[in-house]
C-alpha cells in the first residue's frame, strides 16, 4: 500500500490547502506544510519567504524515518510526533498516515497551542488522505496522458 503512487487531484489539493491555512491561523504559526513520508512536498501555506521548503521536506522525512527506526529498536511502532525548539524558531512534526504535517512557529505561538490545533486538524487531514487513497486507482483523462508519453518526450528532457 505504501508504495502505490500518491496521486493528488485538484479537489483534495484544495481541501488540504484550506485545512493547512486554517491550522496556520488557529495555531498562530508562520508556515504549515504537508510532505509525504518519502520527502516529497505536498502543499504549503504561510509566509515561506526564503525558507527552502524542498530541503525542509526531505530533511523532515529523514528525521521522522530515523526516529521511527529508533522507535522500533525500543519496541515502539513509531514516534508519531517530534518537536524541535530553538531560540526563536520551532518546528513541530506530526505523522498522519503516509504524510507528515510540519508546523514552523516562533515565540508568538506556544507548543501547547500548536499541539492542540494539530490534533484537531489531523482528523480532517486523515479524512482527506483516506479519500486520496480510495481514488488512487481510478483513472482519469490525465492518466491516459502518461500512457501516451513517447520516447521522444522523454528524450526531450535531456537535450
Amino acid at each position: 500500500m505504501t508504495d502505490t503512487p500518491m496521486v493528488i487531484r485538484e479537489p483534495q489539493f484544495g481541501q488540504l490547502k484550506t485545512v493547512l491555512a486554517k491550522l496556520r491561523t488557529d495555531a498562530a504559526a508562520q508556515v504549515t506544510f504537508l510532505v509525504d513520508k518519502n520527502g516529497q512536498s505536498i502543499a504549503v501555506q504561510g509566509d515561506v519567504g526564503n525558507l527552502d521548503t524542498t530541503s525542509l521536506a526531505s530533511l523532515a522525512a529523514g528525521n521522522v524515518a530515523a526516529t521511527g527506526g529508533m522507535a522500533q529498536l525500543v519496541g515502539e511502532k513509531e514516534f508519531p510526533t517530534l518537536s524541535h525548539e530553538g531560540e526563536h524558531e520551532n518546528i513541530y512534526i506530526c505523522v498522519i498516515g503516509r504524510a507528515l504535517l510540519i508546523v514552523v512557529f516562533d515565540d508568538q505561538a506556544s507548543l501547547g497551542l500548536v499541539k492542540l490545533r494539530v490534533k484537531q486538524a489531523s482528523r480532517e487531514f486523515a479524512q482527506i488522505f483516506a479519500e486520496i487513497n480510495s481514488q488512487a486507482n481510478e483513472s482519469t483523462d490525465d492518466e491516459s496522458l502518461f500512457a501516451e508519453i513517447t520516447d521522444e518526450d522523454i528524450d526531450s528532457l535531456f537535450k
Partner: protein
Amino acid sequence: MTFINYASREINCKIVYYGPGLCGKTTNLQYIYDSTAPTSKGKLISLATETDRTLFFDFMPLELGTVRGFKTRFHLYTVPGQVFYDASRKLILKGVDGVVFVADSQEERMDANIESLYNLEENLQAHGHDLMKLPYVLQLNKRDLPTAIPAADLAAELQRKGEPVHEAVAATGVGVFDTLKSVAKQVLTELRKS
C-alpha cells in the same frame, strides 16, 4: 513511489545512488549539482561527518523540464556507504523509484562491491521491492585509476539483469549524466507502463 500532483501538474520521482563506501556516490551528486543551471536545481544537502563521509544522506532536487504539461522533478539521494550505517541505508530506500549502483572499479574494492550489491537487494526486499523489476543502472566508477579491473570483467561480476552499464570518472564528470539519464528514462518509462 512516484508522487503525482495533478493540481500543480508535477511528477516527483526518487532516485537513490547506492554502493560501497568511497565509491563516489556523493561525487556523482556534487558533479550534477555543479553542472546544473541554478534554475533547475535546489540546494545540495549533505549530512556528513566531520571528515566528509556521508552520515545519513545527500540530497538534491533536480527539475528536468515538462512532459505532457507536467513538471518532472527528480529527487536524488545517496546512502552512506560504510557497512555499519545499514539502518540508515534501509530508510533511504523507502519509496525509491530508481537505483544507481556505483561500483568502485579498483580490484581491491571488488569484495566491497559485491557485499554492497547483496546488501542493496536485501534492503530493497525489506521494502517489498525487487531489484529485477526496479529501474536500475550499474555505473563503473573510477575508470581512470591504474588498478581498475577491465570493465567487461567488472560488469560480468556485478550485472544482475542486463541493466545499462556506464563507465564513469565521477570526479571529472565522465559518465555522470549518462548514468542519470539512463535511470531517469527507465523511471519515466515505468510511469508510462503503470
